[in-house]
């Protein structure tokens, strides 16, 4: 019930959409009716390859993000622990961080063509830095007393990394990954719009170009829903992973 009240403004927006299209306030070419969009979505789900497109997209996002998480955490902790590595990599990071990663899409397409690898690479590059920087900041901020205690108890180097530094840096790493999660969706859709033959981004652009507006709206809202749902799921998981911190 509480949830219903909280989310009622969204319902309000939906109702105004219905009213606008019902009374023809806006031409149906500009804003197809809600039911038309919903029916189209259902049809595409059953008869067209919407499921395949969605699966392709999610697979790409997951691969790119997964790679970025692995490499980002590794490099981030390495840089935090080694002054030399920090000096070595800092200039690159300083230049790459503010670069809008969408600008890499055409270059990556020149290199890798229109297949999976191009989109996965773009997503990987875009998601890498937030994870890397949060791991770096997290690992560097570990309290020295924690490290000393572990050392005096005879922790090995690996044990120190895994049980002390990684654990202590985890909250920051996890919030870095959350930023990357959002970025992965944006880059996924952008890269697929610019150059792909499959995927939800491709589908939105393709349907838009061919004037299939109800379908375009349906897929666009599906993408929005995916972005929102994965973020919610991630938040829930984050809370679960960090449950040891409460009380």
């Amino acid at each position, binding site marked *: 019930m509480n949830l219903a009240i909280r989310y009622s*403004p969204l319902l309000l927006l939906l109702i105004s959409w219905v009213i606008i299209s019902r009374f023809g306030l806006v031409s149906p070419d500009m804003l197809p009716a809600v039911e038309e969009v919903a029916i189209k979505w259902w049809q595409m789900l059953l008869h067209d390859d919407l499921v395949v497109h969605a699966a392709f997209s999610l697979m790409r996002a997951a691969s790119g993000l997964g790679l970025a998480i692995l490499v980002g955490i590794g490099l981030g902790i390495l840089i935090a622990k080694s002054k030399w590595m920090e000096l070595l990599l800092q200039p*690159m990071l300083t230049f790459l961080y503010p670069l*809008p990663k969408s*600008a890499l899409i*055409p270059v990556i397409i020149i290199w890798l063509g229109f297949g999976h690898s191009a989109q996965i690479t773009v997503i990987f590059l875009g998601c890498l830095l937030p994870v890397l920087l949060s791991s770096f900041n997290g690992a560097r901020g570990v309290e020295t007393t924690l490290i000393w205690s572990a050392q005096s108890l005879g922790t090995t180097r690996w044990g120190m990394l895994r049980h002390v530094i990684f654990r202590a840096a985890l909250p920051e790493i996890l919030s870095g990954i959350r930023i990357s*999660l959002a970025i992965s969706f944006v880059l996924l859709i*952008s890269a697929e*719009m610019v150059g792909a033959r499959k995927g939800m981004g491709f589908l939105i652009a393709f349907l838009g170009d061919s004037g299939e507006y109800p379908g375009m709206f349906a*897929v666009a809202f599906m993408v929005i829903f995916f972005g929102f749902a994965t973020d919610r799921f991630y938040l829930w998981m984050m809370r679960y992973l960090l449950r040891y911190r409460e009380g």
Partner: protein
Amino acid sequence: MKQNRLIRYGVMSVLPVTILVAWEVSARTGMVSSFLLPPFSKVILRIVEDMSSGLMVAALFGTLYRMVISYMIAVVLGVSIGILMARIHIVRWFFDPIVSVGFPAPKIAFLPIFILWFGFFDAPKILMASFSCIFPIIGGTWAAAQGVDKYLIWSAENLGTNRHTMLWRVILPAALPQVFTALQVALPIAFIVIVISEMLTGGGGLGGAMMAGSRLADPARTFANLIVIGILGFLAMKGLQLLRRRVLVWHVEVQQEEMVV
């Protein structure tokens, strides 16, 4: 001490120099086809050429203009909505679910819809970028204004401050550091979206020039524009950082030694 610094800069320059040399050599010797990777020197020359012919100047100004306008719209609207959400109950009720759904959602999926509604020129690009980067601004401002120290507000009330002065002299300044952080998050988002919508909807700009380069088999142009976009992004972020330091000069902002990026 001086020697130390020399070593520092030496180590720092290792990777960029190696990459640039490897780039130039592998492209010149034909290890990599010059279609895939035009030599670095050629790309730089191309920047100079396109700048002096005015082609790139026009693209640069197109992109800059859209960037500035879209970011301004998002800042003004976002900060106002954020403050109102913290102050007025019904505004909070209305925007809270919209922000919580809109924040993590990939708004870029609406780009073709924006094109349908607003045509092909500047309007859909600018509005798409504002729409994409406004959510972090609203969220950050709201949290900041909500979190203003109660004692500050009570003391001001106790001294007879009216609502108007309270907003401008107490709440806004107290929220400013956090608002600035939100603005720093939003800037690259606006830039990403401007570049991508230039690629997809034409109408010039650096993103459009990159796409033209890759469509017309002119990779030097694509790379030249990529480098200019990178420099522009770098300068924009640095500028905002400097502005933050200027504006918040009075604030006891702990100058944490975060990694400077």
